[in-house]
């Protein structure tokens, strides 16, 4: 088997991709690992494609494509899925990503749970487990390793077919216990214990990569994702690569201020949109409404209170709708700033906050952006809803692993 471990190949920058790594790709001197990654990524976003169309879309020569596709078939990453007629009379063989042979695993550290997700190469979920854990308790490497062993054993996934593990967590509030550094320090030990590469990323960024991968977004698109939860994050994918910033904190949409003298935020700024539009802020607002308080079960956990509000809102409760729509208005203000700063072409809403009431946020963002996006007269901006908003961060973590393994060059070594 070829060495495609993310830990070894992912530090390449776009320019270095052009340089063949030699050892691992001896058979394809004409086309470096960047070409292989490019082909996988174009096949992924096309769903099915012929070799001829691949040549058109990638600019690679037919012989290079034939060699790379042959290798990808031998490695179980791509398979032929039949033929289609063509105008010249010769049937064209179609190829697609072969989902079933290899898997990526993602761990999402939530406030009181660890969500484990395993996906196939197309991003389809093959298993997930939610494990209770103590609040704010980062598990040591040996405990995470045991969870990994248990989870993959229960799903009966052979270790040799698992491409790696990515662990994702919210970016810590400045001055709070530093999850990001802790995870980075755990990384080497965890890799040793489980014998597959380990990546570390912030949860909203991972969620964006997951949506990019499983929705088959083309690398030509300037893609962004809003992750709505107890905080608000964003992830950005440009040219097929997740934008990582200098460290762990890219895409902190929740700390875009929508009011220069607004509510104070623990981050140090005033008016951060997270103080107005996170699921926590929405639950606070609803609990202050005596009518809602009397009508809805808001005294339990914050997540069950939020779901009660969301359900009532979409079932026609005007006060519940008003609370969520107000949050959506606040979020729209920050979304316009992000869209304008980056000139996005496609935006997906995800995270537990949009699981039940995503339609309210999507409608409000569409309306608002159609009036405020700076580029609105030059190009359209699609605003879509995630198909699996509750598990998006865990799925995204697993997608980081899959991308690093089969379309490398875009996932960095995650701050070794």
């Amino acid at each position, binding site marked *: 088997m070829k060495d495609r471990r993310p830990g070894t190949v992912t530090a390449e920058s776009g320019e270095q991709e052009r340089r063949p790594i030699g050892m691992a790709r001896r058979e394809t001197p004409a086309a470096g690992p960047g070409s292989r990654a490019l082909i996988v990524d174009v096949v992924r976003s096309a769903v099915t494609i012929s070799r001829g169309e691949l040549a058109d879309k990638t600019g690679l020569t037919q012989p290079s494509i034939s060699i790379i596709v042959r290798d990808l078939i031998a490695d179980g990453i791509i398979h032929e899925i039949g033929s289609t007629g063509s105008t010249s009379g010769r049937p064209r063989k179609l190829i697609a990503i072969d989902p079933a042979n290899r898997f990526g695993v993602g761990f999402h550290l939530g406030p009181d749970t660890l969500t484990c997700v395993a996906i196939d190469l197309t991003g*389809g979920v093959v298993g997930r487990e939610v494990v209770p854990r103590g609040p704010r308790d980062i598990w040591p490497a040996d405990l995470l390793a045991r969870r990994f062993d248990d989870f993959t054993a229960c799903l009966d996934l052979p270790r040799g077919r698992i491409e790696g593990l990515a662990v994702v967590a919210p970016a810590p509030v400045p001055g709070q216990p530093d999850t990001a550094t802790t995870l980075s320090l755990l990384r080497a030990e965890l890799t040793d214990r489980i014998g597959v590469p380990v990546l570390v990323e912030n949860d909203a960024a991972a969620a964006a990569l997951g949506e990019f991968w499983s929705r088959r977004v083309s690398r030509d698109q300037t893609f962004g994702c809003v992750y709505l939860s107890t905080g608000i994050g964003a992830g950005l994918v440009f040219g097929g690569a997740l934008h990582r910033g200098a460290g762990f904190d890219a895409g902190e949409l929740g700390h875009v201020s929508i009011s220069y003298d607004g509510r104070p935020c623990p981050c140090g700024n005033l008016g951060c949109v997270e103080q107005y539009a996170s699921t926590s802020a929405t639950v606070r607002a609803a609990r202050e409404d005596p009518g809602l308080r009397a009508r809805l079960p808001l005294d339990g956990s914050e997540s069950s209170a939020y779901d009660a509000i969301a359900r009532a809102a979409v079932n026609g409760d005007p006060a519940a709708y008003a609370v969520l729509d107000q949050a959506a208005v606040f979020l729209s203000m920050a979304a316009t700033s992000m869209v304008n700063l980056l000139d996005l072409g496609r935006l997906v809403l995800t995270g537990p906050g949009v699981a039940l009431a995503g339609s309210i946020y999507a409608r409000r963002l569409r309306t608002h952006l159609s009036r405020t996006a700076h580029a609105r007269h030059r190009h359209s901006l699609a605003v879509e809803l995630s198909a699996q908003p509750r598990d998006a961060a865990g799925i995204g973590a697993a997608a980081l692993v899959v991308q690093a393994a089969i379309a490398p060059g875009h996932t960095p070594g995650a701050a070794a």
Partner: protein
Amino acid sequence: MSQEPQRVGLVLARASQVLGEEPFYHEFIEGLERVLTPAGVSLLVKVVTDRAAETATYEQWAERKQVAGVMLVDLSPDDERVPLVRRLGIPAVVLGDPSTADGLPTVWTDDAGFARDAVRFLAERGHTVVGHVSGPLLFAHTQLRREGAETEAGERGLTLVTAEGDYSQESGRQATARVLSHAAGRPTAIVYDNDMMALGGLDTIRDRGLRVPADVSVVAWDDSAQCQLAVPALSAMSHDVGRIGELGGGAILDAMRDAAAATVYEAPKAQIVERESTT
């Protein structure tokens, strides 16, 4: 070293892509977790592509003692999984009609009754030919919905035209084409067994040059964000799926404590939320 958490298993037999499309299971799982997580119990979901793999999974879990209980979903009449988990000695709860559970505890949703409600809702609005695009008839809950719809249509003298899908959007498109071409007459309203098939149906209805709801009314089962965002927004048979999950979580904890308990936990009633797709 912390104690090993106890684990509840749930196997879903379907293509992983279909799971990705089904908000029902996401909300059901969320509800289960709301009860299991505070009790220190983890929930494991495994997606398999066929029944044989599902059976093998229960056997593996039992042999390696990997789960303390299982939640069974999508049962057929006389389902072989019920005697299987009993033989394996795994505490189990069935999501479905008590008639399929052979004495196992069940979380019961009155599928026949809700289907009658949906047909009655349309009859009261003057529809006389009603379509029903169902899920796989292999499932007991599908059969109960079909029977409920037939009973209500029969009592009210309506014509019911039916087609079977597999819950995917594409199957909704195809089943809708069959229903609209039915020899018994073109329905002026169609009930779908889930949200994704209803969304597929919207495409087909439009492709035929028909308008929703002026020519054909549409009712989805399982409300979802996609139903609400559809144009027109879909009227839906909405039930509190998260609550059904919470009942399931409580039931499985009870079953793990006392494997003999054959309780029926009744889910809250579903109701139609009227939006723009029905007249």
